[in-house]
């Protein structure tokens, strides 16, 4: 099991997905595991036939020998072993890089590493100097930046195909503007080009945002990918008549009693509001190969008739979910009231003390600010780290920081208020007097409210224009961040970049140096301990362990072995369960895409539980008559098909 290109959620969910027999969500790892367990070998041993136009049957081996493009679709039928060994061999060569440098001045720059001697290179012929000029370099000056931007295109899974092109063309547009003061004409040209690329019209608000971003990016070109991020078309579900309360099956938690289902969106611990529903949805592949979500009524569903289907905490969970929004608001009110009460107690204590209000309040303000910045910051950082590493809640945000769901203030402060209210209550009940009492109250006030506001401030850091969310910057936040009172977007966004460790302080960023450098230098690597803890509890692989996060992957070998063992165990269970499964029918087709470049193929896989209707197959053959595609129809057991 290699960790490259595997995001941690995929790895986490793989164990859940594989037993359900749907490796599509985790293709690479799933494929590797299937490969390791011989499933592909089993597939290859099937008698596959390719049916093309005119019902002509071509043997797959023959197809490969002819190097026909259709053959590239059928990777599963190819001998993977040699390819895999070659891959391992190349990866082995990668590991030679840190080795001792060998004098190979014969080869131009002579930057070769590995084992060997320069004498062994004698007799080697080198191309003429002019040969390199044939290498394509259409944009020599901008190539590194351009490549970086194109790489950034991979961050948009939903418009994966288009994003690199958009980024590259934007970069070329931008090069025309680089170094110039951006005038109205430039802006109009840029905006219309952007509209054409994105296929959507920019409104006046978007135009204002574009102008400010364009100016910010003009100096270095480095802000370009942020522009693409911000202005990329939001992926929307196609307009359809699907009712809003119909939800995919995998998001359903079934609670309730036989004949009376309560369908809950999201997992139970998130305490989402339950909805009574008589319909549920199922994802599947339609007959034409497209993935579609099916909906149907719950009536008559065998699940409803199952006498074992009765959730023990039915009523309690339902009422807890209904009460949650009110509890959230109550927590906010308690924090505000507690702060007001403690503040009033502090003022009374100050006026009764020897220094008096005029002297003590400014000092208390300084102490309160320190409490806000350092106490609140540290509390916010640790809670942030706990939430990030120990709950599934933040996984989506960390995989795609650009995608922030709007949340209400009370939802954002819900968890941490359970930590910030008790200190207020304790300080109020202690009611300390004298000068030290005033300072104590000030510090508690600052710390408590710093922690309480940490998540809303975190959200502001993402909404800023140098952050990643497409929103107008908040002026007051911008000023406070610039003054160093609140965390700046740049500081917070380091937390979302490689190596994904540290920079957790969401309040002011002031404690980051202490938490990230000073504490580890004392031998306590808090973040590493927490990451390891999360892995031990539920197997979630932290971002920092992934290859590419640092120069070398830092996944402990023992952990790798554990992951591998666990996944193989689950796969074995799945294979055991699949032995008795029903047969399914598979159709794999390939149609050349007329709209895109030659060699671009539209691949479809249909997997259904009934034979394909004649008219569907006839339609495929009609397509194939017009174009030059391929079609495979297999009758396999479900396990073999998957």
């Amino acid at each position, binding site marked *: 099991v290699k960790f490259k290109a595997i995001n941690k959620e995929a790895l986490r969910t793989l164990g859940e997905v594989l037993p359900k027999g749907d490796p*599509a969500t985790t*293709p690479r790892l799933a494929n590797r595991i299937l490969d390791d367990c011989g499933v592909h070998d089993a597939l290859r041993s099937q008698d596959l036939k390719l049916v093309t136009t005119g019902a002509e049957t071509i043997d797959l081996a023959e197809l490969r020998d002819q*190097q026909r493009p259709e053959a590239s679709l059928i*990777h599963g039928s190819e001998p993977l072993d040699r390819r*895999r060994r070659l891959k391992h061999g*190349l990866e082995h*060569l990668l590991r030679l890089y840190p080795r001792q440098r060998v004098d190979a001045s014969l080869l131009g720059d002579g930057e070769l590493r590995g084992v060997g001697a320069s004498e062994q290179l004698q007799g080697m012929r080198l191309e003429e100097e002019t040969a390199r000029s044939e290498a394509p370099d259409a944009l020599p000056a901008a190539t590194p930046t351009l490549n970086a931007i194109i790489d950034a295109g991979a961050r948009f899974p939903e418009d994966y195909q288009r994003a690199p092109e958009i980024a590259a063309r934007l970069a070329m547009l931008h090069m025309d503007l680089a170094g110039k003061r951006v005038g109205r004409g430039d802006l109009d040209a840029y905006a219309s080009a952007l509209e054409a690329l994105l296929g959507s019209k920019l409104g006046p608000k978007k135009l204002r945002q574009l102008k400010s971003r364009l100016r910010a990016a003009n100096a270095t070109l480095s802000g370009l990918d942020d522009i693409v991020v911000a202005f990329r078309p939001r992926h*929307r579900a196609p307009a359809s008549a699907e009712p809003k309360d119909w939800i995919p099956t995998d998001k359903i938690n079934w609670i309730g009693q036989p004949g009376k289902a309560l369908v809950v969106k999201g997992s139970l611990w998130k305490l989402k509001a339950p909805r009574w529903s008589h319909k549920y949805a199922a994802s599947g592949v339609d007959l034409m190969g497209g993935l579609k979500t099916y909906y149907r009524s719950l009536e008559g569903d065998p699940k409803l008739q199952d006498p074992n289907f009765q959730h023990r905490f039915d009523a309690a969970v339902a009422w807890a979910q209904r009460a949650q929004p009110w509890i959230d608001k109550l927590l906010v009110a308690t924090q505000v009231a507690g702060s007001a009460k403690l503040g009033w107690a502090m003022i009374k204590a100050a006026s009764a003390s020897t220094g008096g209000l005029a002297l003590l309040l400014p000092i208390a303000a300084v102490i309160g600010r320190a409490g806000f910045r350092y106490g609140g910051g540290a509390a916010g950082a640790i809670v942030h780290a706990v939430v990030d590493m120990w709950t599934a809640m933040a996984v989506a945000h960390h995989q795609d920081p650009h995608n922030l769901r709007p949340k209400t203030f009370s939802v954002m402060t819900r968890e941490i208020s359970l930590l910030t209210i008790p200190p207020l209550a304790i300080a109020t009940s202690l009611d300390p007097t004298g000068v030290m009492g005033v300072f104590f109250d000030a510090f508690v006030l600052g710390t408590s409210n710093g922690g309480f506001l940490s998540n809303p401030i*975190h959200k502001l850091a993402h909404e800023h224009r140098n952050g990643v969310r497409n929103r107008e910057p908040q002026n007051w936040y911008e000023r406070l961040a610039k003054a160093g009172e609140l965390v700046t977007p740049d500081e917070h966004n380091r937390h979302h970049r490689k190596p994904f460790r540290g920079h957790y302080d969401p309040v002011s960023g002031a404690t980051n140096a202490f938490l990230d450098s000073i504490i580890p230098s004392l031998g306590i690597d808090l973040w590493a301990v927490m990451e390891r803890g999360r892995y031990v509890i539920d197997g979630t692989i932290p971002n920092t362990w992934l290859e590419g996060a640092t120069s070398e992957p830092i996944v402990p070998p023992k952990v790798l072995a554990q992951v591998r063992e666990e996944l193989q165990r689950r796969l074995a269970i799945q294979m055991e369960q699949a032995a008795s499964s029903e047969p399914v029918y598979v159709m794999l087709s390939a149609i050349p895409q007329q709209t895109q470049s030659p060699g671009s193929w539209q691949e479809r896989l249909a997997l259904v539980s009934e034979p394909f209707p004649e008219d569907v197959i006839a339609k495929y053959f009609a397509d194939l008559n017009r174009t030059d595609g391929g079609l495979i129809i297999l009758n396999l057991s479900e396990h073999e098909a998957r």
Partner: protein
Amino acid sequence: VVDEEIAPPAFLALLDQAIRRDMSAPRLDGLIAVAISAEGGWRYWRLKLTRDRAESAFVDALPRRADVTIVLGSREADSLISTGDLPPRPELALVGGDRHLLQRFIERYFAGSSWLEARSQSKRSTEPLRRRGSS
């Protein structure tokens, strides 16, 4: 000039086959050169990668300034494809240039893809991205 009569070493033939088999755009940019000492001299292979096209060829000389240069002895090359590892006491196994490009090349052309992946790509293009929560 490619010598048609002498078959290229298996290592180079496999590399060439992997490139030719994959018809889609490489989305990489660079020049990769491999030299293998074979009986009777050296054999060279080079791969020109642009965003849209991959050009694989057996050539008669090693490109002087390739982005990635790999030099292998015949024993080492055979061992790499038969075991995935170098032989016990390798004599000639050199690699140099852009490590990142080599890594991306391996990921691009040798990731374990299969028709299951084809299915997932189809899913990616048709299934709407669900909005996600934040912390």
